[in-house]
């Protein structure tokens, strides 16, 4: 295999990018959010046609008009969001699209044998008869890998495969990837995590803002260089924060429990913690360990089955979302499109979303437009929110970073006592991440209590004063970020207690 070359000067998305994948290598594709990684993959799969540039395989120019062509060329992909049908079995998902037929009926026997063989060969244990909705995320990922193997793909693409895995599962995945390349498969590994590149990749291609930067041999470079290439300047991931002695307790959560309505299991299990004035407390953990539900229960979006929440001396355990807001709680939500914004409202209406009901903005049930727009103009100015048509801009048309700025402006401006920020930097580029971290630190300096939920270890350890680890709905560790290592934290996130970790 000679490699895949592709060039095409688009407007911004992909500008003259070359990517060569050698047989049997693990090749990392590194870039920030919005650097053009996904677009490039879409081109490879024929979802978009490039304005210029070609794709070659084994020296031959090939034309990819759709996913089917890609499959024929032996290219397969594990998407970041798995493409699995939840109420099909593992086996059904694997054979879907290339089923074996006998007399017009499905015949699964041979397929099952083939799948079982593959799982043995590559160490991909999974029960072919299990329903997707019943198995863990790690198992689902294995199903995706088996899907590619079943199709006898030669080029395997992994799109951000580790985001949803525990550190142990990540280690397993790395082993599997090595196995696969030993068997002659080639792997393209899309990520923005430098550790993983160092652990597993042979070479690395870096993209930045749609432009090709360079391809380097991983062994001959280091993390600092890679991150500089990715961002375009030296990045100090260290956050400077002034020393503050935390004040009185702002929020005291005790025994908070949320049950799953169907299974009756505790999604949030007896969670207790305190956040004090001038303190950033981070709850770290792998996605899907009850963080979302914990936040919903804290903010009142979901009823807690047990436990109490005291905000600044006031019991708010059973109050509404609105009452909690009035009591001094602000919330930067995990999913800004789902919760944070009404995309079809304009910017002013969105900035007023938490305050429109205040006497200042209404008169006997009628909205006071003048006040709303004046207020919005103020926030836009103060927080540097950029948009096409100012207050009248439909929020849908704004960039992700500015949408997030709008939310942060709105929430901080409520002058809350407690600010709950859930993955506030998700999907943003480094500039926006730095901006948001600065704002959080600033609020901390003003003596606000901040509860940060993060999936990124660096963020968790970088800006917090105290780090709690959540696993399967329980707080399993409470550590000082100054004296804990990544490895230790990783073990907690995977559910090992502190004592085991020390031993």
């Amino acid at each position: 295999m000679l490699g895949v070359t592709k060039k095409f000067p688009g407007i911004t998305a992909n500008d003259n990018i070359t990517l060569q994948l050698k047989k049997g290598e693990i090749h990392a594709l590194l870039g920030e959010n919005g650097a053009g990684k996904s677009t490039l993959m879409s081109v490879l799969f024929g979802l978009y046609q490039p304005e210029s540039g070609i794709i070659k395989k084994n020296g031959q120019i090939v034309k990819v008009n759709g996913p089917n062509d890609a499959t024929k060329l032996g290219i397969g992909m594990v998407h970041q969001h798995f493409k699995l049908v939840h109420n099909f079995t593992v086996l059904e998902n694997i054979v879907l699209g290339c089923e074996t037929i006998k007399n017009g009926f499905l015949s699964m026997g041979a397929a099952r044998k083939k799948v079982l063989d593959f799982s043995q060969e590559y160490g991909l244990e999974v029960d072919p008869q299990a329903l997707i909705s019943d198995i863990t995320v790690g198992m689902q990922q294995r199903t995706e890998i088996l899907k590619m193997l079943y199709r006898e793909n030669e080029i395997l693409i992994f799109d951000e495969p580790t985001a949803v895995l525990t550190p142990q599962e990540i280690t397993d995945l790395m082993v599997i990837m090595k196995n696969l390349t030993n068997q002659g498969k080639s792997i393209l590994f899309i990520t923005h995590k430098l550790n993983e590149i160092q652990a597993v990749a042979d070479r690395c291609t870096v993209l930045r803002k749609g432009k090709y930067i360079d391809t380097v041999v991983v062994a001959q470079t280091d993390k600092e260089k890679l991150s500089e290439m990715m961002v375009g300047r030296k990045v100090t991931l260290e956050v400077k924060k002034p020393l503050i002695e935390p004040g009185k307790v702002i929020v005291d959560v005790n025994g908070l429990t949320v049950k799953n309505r169907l299974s009756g299991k505790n999604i949030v299990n007896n969670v207790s913690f305190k956040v004090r004035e001038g303190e950033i407390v981070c709850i770290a953990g792998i996605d899907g360990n009850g963080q979302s539900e914990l936040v919903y229960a804290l903010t009142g979006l979901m009823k807690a089955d047990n436990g109490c929440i005291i905000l600044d001396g006031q019991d708010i355990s059973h109050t509404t979302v609105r009452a909690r807001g009035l009591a001094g709680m602000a919330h930067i939500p995990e999913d800004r499109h789902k919760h944070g914004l009404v995309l079809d409202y304009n910017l002013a209406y969105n900035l007023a979303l938490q305050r429109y009901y205040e006497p200042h903005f209404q008169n006997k049930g009628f909205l006071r437009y003048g006040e709303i727009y004046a207020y919005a103009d103020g926030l836009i100015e103060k927080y540097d929110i950029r948009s096409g048509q100012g207050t009248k801009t439909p929020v849908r048309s704004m960039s992700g970073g500015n949408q997030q700025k709008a939310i942060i402006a709105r929430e901080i401006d409520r002058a809350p006592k407690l600010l709950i920020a859930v993955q506030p930097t998700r999907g943003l580029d480094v500039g926006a991440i730095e901006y948001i971290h600065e704002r959080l630190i600033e609020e901390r300096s003003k003596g606000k209590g901040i509860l940060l939920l993060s999936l990124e270890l660096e963020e968790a350890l970088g800006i917090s004063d105290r780090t709690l680890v959540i696993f399967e709905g329980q707080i399993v560790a409470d550590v000082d970020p100054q004296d804990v290592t990544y490895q230790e934290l990783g073990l907690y996130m995977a559910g090992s207690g502190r004592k085991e970790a020390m031993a």
Partner: protein
Amino acid sequence: MFFAIPLLIVALGGMFSERSGVVNIALEGLMIFGAFTGVVFIGIIQKSGAHIDGQMLLLLAVLIAGAVGALVSLAHAYSAINMKADQIISGTAINMLAPAFAIFVGRRISEKGTQQVHFEDWFRFDSVPKLGDLPIIGDLFFKNAYLTTYLGFLILFISWIVLYKTRFGLRLRSCGEHPQAADSVGINVYKMRYAGVIISGILAGIGGLVFVIPTSREFNATVSGYGFLALAVLIFGQWKPLRILFTAFFFGLLKAVAASSSGLPVLKDIPISSYFYKMMPYVITLIVLTFTSKNSQAPKAEGIPYDKGGR
């Protein structure tokens, strides 16, 4: 029985459409189109004096009803799949179009200028040889019967096989649950959804005719809300063929009671209006929905237009 079979057929049609991811509230309209053309066809042949076997004629009419249902459902499919329009709205359009069309054309072609289309019943048979003599079962299933009843069961059997035992069924279901997944493995989601909608059109068209034949001697541009009732059957049946069968028979029974409440001596003495029996299927569906909607097994991607570019 006469009430249950059309419900069964139409609900199965709806199942194919919804399992492929397209909500089809146009079932009512499709039934009218099928029934109307089928009955018109029968009327023409009967008047022409052609000597044709009754069962043969019925089968031909069924084919025509199915074909017309398929044709009209294409309009829904195009709007829902290609135009990504609101599936409820285009369904409503077809539901409104159908009776208007049937009346308009009915008046045009009838001699007296009335909207009713008449036909004669050449299709009933008194008893199936041998099977009709069986105790109980014979009385229930094989006497005073219509071919369409067996057709209903045949369709049920085939539907079950197709949905669960064939490649087509597997792919169709994947499009209704997770079209992106289907697309990523090279399944043409648009094609599968077209197939689902067209099958629903065929079955709804047939169901319309099957509804009219045993219960009436004329067609009056209505199928009495059976299309919507079939939708209720589909939901009550949780989008699964066998549960649809039971629901269809349960609702059919209620309808039968409503229709004959004044005739049955037992019910005559109970002072309950036939309107209550007529209401019952809808009330029951509403109650069932109330208790099942939180964990409904509706296809996940139902009603959401699939956009190839969107991820």
